[in-house]
């Protein structure tokens, strides 16, 4: 047997002895397919129901975000990043703002940092809720979707009250925040934490010990920590494989080092572990939010940033822990008002690489489960 990793998935040159022997079926899944979370196209090579290999065809949602950045000033580009991972727009904004701040050598004031953390963690919960709903829907449980969407609504309401937008929030500015937290922001957040805690138990009640859920997710899409690192897979997928790597702890940004939280880690690297890890992340995020909302300091929300930003010549790579994994921004400045080059390291795109490895020798139905568990957003994959 050759190492499956060296085979091209669509290596159709293998002689098909007869029609029957070769019930190797090439099936095209997507780009219009209900379970690929957008416009992902997967070409599957099947032996009956067994997946021999697959190839992702991406780019259906390509908008040239990175190229657009070269023609916009630093401030003007800020809203564009919201459109990459549109279910976790706040995290995208945080990463970009922090990267530019690093380039400008400014730091957002503490109050801004705290509010940023609260909003980002709320966004992490919203993103995970959306993931949970769609993932469960793909596996056939239709009810969790409605539960998670009901609760995600509360988060979106807070976003809307804070900045007027629900999805593509554009909440942060380079150097801090534009808006002061509205009256009652803290109360809203506290109420939300109180509201959502039992709801997370409710999701777990529906799924965690459900026999069919266990059978569908245990041992499915297994990937080892080594393979994860080799493929650059990050985020909950990496942690579920037993690698304790979370940028919030490993290279703390914002002021995550001030908060007390744990990094949930899985053992087997299968779909179930990824599910459990994300369920725990809900709770950890709630912990962070609670601490942050208690400790919001008074003070300014905007650092001193020049009106026309002209960062010094140089380059910077800054990455944060987005809900889906490591979201990195590599910005090259030529000293003008516009970045010379912006390169985004989107977690979805990198994690998608692992799909082929995770699906080999699994069944077609597992491909759906694995796509769901990778938690990809095509806006981010294609940019």
């Amino acid at each position, binding site marked *: 047997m050759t190492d499956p990793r060296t085979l091209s998935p669509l290596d159709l040159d293998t002689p098909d002895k007869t029609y029957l022997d070769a019930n190797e079926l090439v099936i095209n899944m997507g780009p219009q397919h209900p379970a690929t979370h957008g416009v992902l196209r997967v070409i599957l090579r099947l032996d009956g129901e067994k997946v021999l290999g697959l190839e992702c065809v991406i780019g259906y949602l390509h908008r040239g975000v990175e190229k657009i950045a070269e023609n916009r000033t630093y401030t003007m580009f800020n809203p564009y990043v919201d459109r990459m991972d549109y279910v976790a727009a706040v995290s995208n904004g945080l990463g970009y703002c922090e990267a530019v701040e690093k380039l400008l050598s400014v730091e957002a004031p503490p109050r801004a940092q705290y509010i940023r953390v609260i909003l980002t963690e709320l966004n992490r919960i919203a993103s995970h809720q959306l993931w949970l709903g769609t993932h469960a829907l793909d596996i056939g449980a239709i009810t969790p979707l409605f539960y998670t969407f009901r609760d995600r609504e509360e988060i979106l309401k807070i976003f809307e009250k804070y900045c007027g937008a629900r999805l593509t929030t554009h909440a942060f500015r380079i150097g801090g925040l534009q808006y002061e937290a509205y009256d009652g922001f803290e109360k809203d957040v506290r109420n939300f934490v109180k509201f959502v805690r039992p709801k997370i138990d409710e999701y777990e009640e529906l799924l965690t010990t459900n026999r*069919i859920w266990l059978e569908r997710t245990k041992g499915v899409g297994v990937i080892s920590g080594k393979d994860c690192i080799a493929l650059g897979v990050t985020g909950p997928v990496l942690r579920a494989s037993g690698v304790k790597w979370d940028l919030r702890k490993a290279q703390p940004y914002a002021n995550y080092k001030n908060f007390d939280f744990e990094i949930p880690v899985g053992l087997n690297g299968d779909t179930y572990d990824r599910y459990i890890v994300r369920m725990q992340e809900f709770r950890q995020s709630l912990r962070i939010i609670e601490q942050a909302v208690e400790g919001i300091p008074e003070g300014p929300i905007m650092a001193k940033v020049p009106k026309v930003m002209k960062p010094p010549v140089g380059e910077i790579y800054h990455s944060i822990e987005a809900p889906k994994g490591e979201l990195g921004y590599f910005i090259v400045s030529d000293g003008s008002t516009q970045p010379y080059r912006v390169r985004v390291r989107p977690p979805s795109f990198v994690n998608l690489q692992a799909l082929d490895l995770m699906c080999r020798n699994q069944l077609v139905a597992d491909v759906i489960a694995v796509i769901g568990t990778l938690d990809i957003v095509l806006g981010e994959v294609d940019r």
Partner: protein
Amino acid sequence: MHDLINYITSYFGSNLTPGAAGNFFWATVYILLVFVGLSIAVIAMNWLERKILAHMQVRLGPMRVGPHGLLQPIADAIKLLLKEDIIPAEADQLVFWIAPFIVVLAAFTVFVVVPFGPTSAITDMNIGILFMLGVSSLSVLGIVTAGWASNSHYPLIGALRSSAQMVSYEVAMGLAVVSAILMTSLHGLGFYGVAASGDTGTLSMIEIVNAQMEQQTWFIFKFFPLGLIAFTIFAIAMVAETNRAPFDLPEAESELTAGFHTEYSGFRWSLFFLAEYSAMIAVSSIAVTLWLGGWLRPFPNALAGRTWDVIFSFFPGLTFLALGAITFYNVARMPRHPLFRIQTMGLAGFGAVLGLIGVVLLIPEISSHVQNVFWFSAKVAAFMYLYIWYRGTFPRYRFDQLMKVGWKVLLPTGLVLLILTAGVGMRDEIWDLLQRVTHS
């Protein structure tokens, strides 16, 4: 003319099903009644499934077409009938055309032997239960041909999955059924130690219920827990047999878009839909007949006597009255707005109809005739609720897991169960045999 009237009236007072009495007129009337009732049940089921599922999922479900979406199924039916009937160019026209009819025919024909009451069945066959199993297994043919005729990958895989699933689960289903049939001729145990009426068992649906009456126990409780296990096997297998959640792989939307009927649209698609729901009702009726005492009201023996009979005869009327009351409660909750006036009136009218039916059913003459059908339908309705509940709660099995459940869990359990049932039933004979062997 006189003969004709005589022929028609001769059936009154008969204690037979019209088919068994050989009365064509009444057999036709019963067939029409059953099929009209079935269509109404499918329509009601369509609405109820949406509403119940919606309320399980913290949403409202259809609310726009008619008050509380009551007219939604009718609107959907009109939409489906008006849609273009597309036959793909590469499809096998004839087979593509004929496949939905096979499925519908198989799903509807089984109702010929379903006993809604001791005389309220179209006919009673010597081989009733075998007929039901056999004819319902014919729908596999329709599904396979539908998938093949579409000449496309997804329907073909869906059809192969579906038929493999149905064929596999038929085996487990059959074993559970056989154990129930065995019980018709076996003496009970302990508390339910009532003798079976004869040496021979029966396959006739009506006789199976009569046997439960004579033995004073529903078969689900007979040889506890053997009857219960058989019922459980059947209850699992029947969900798989009708391709419903959590065994709805052939229609796994996330994987196969819509399974074997991907290429179908409009009227032909609605036939598949109709067949699916009537098949659900059909297998539920088998389960009710075999294990839950068919048309028998709860506790026909423990709570026997004139008083109890009268009390239980109020149930059909009271149920409809309660439904009417719920409707009127909702009428009171309707928004007081001129735009909602017609809807409110419609809902009130619906409630009035329900209440009227309830009042009519309270008349002793009518209730005594309708009781059996009511209890049977109530039990079947409980199964329908179960189907919806499953759909709201369970994720979907994977194909290999589904096969594993069928072949490695249900089948061995069914075999052991069958042997145990026979062993417990023949305990005296086995005991005699052992004594003879040890004494000689």
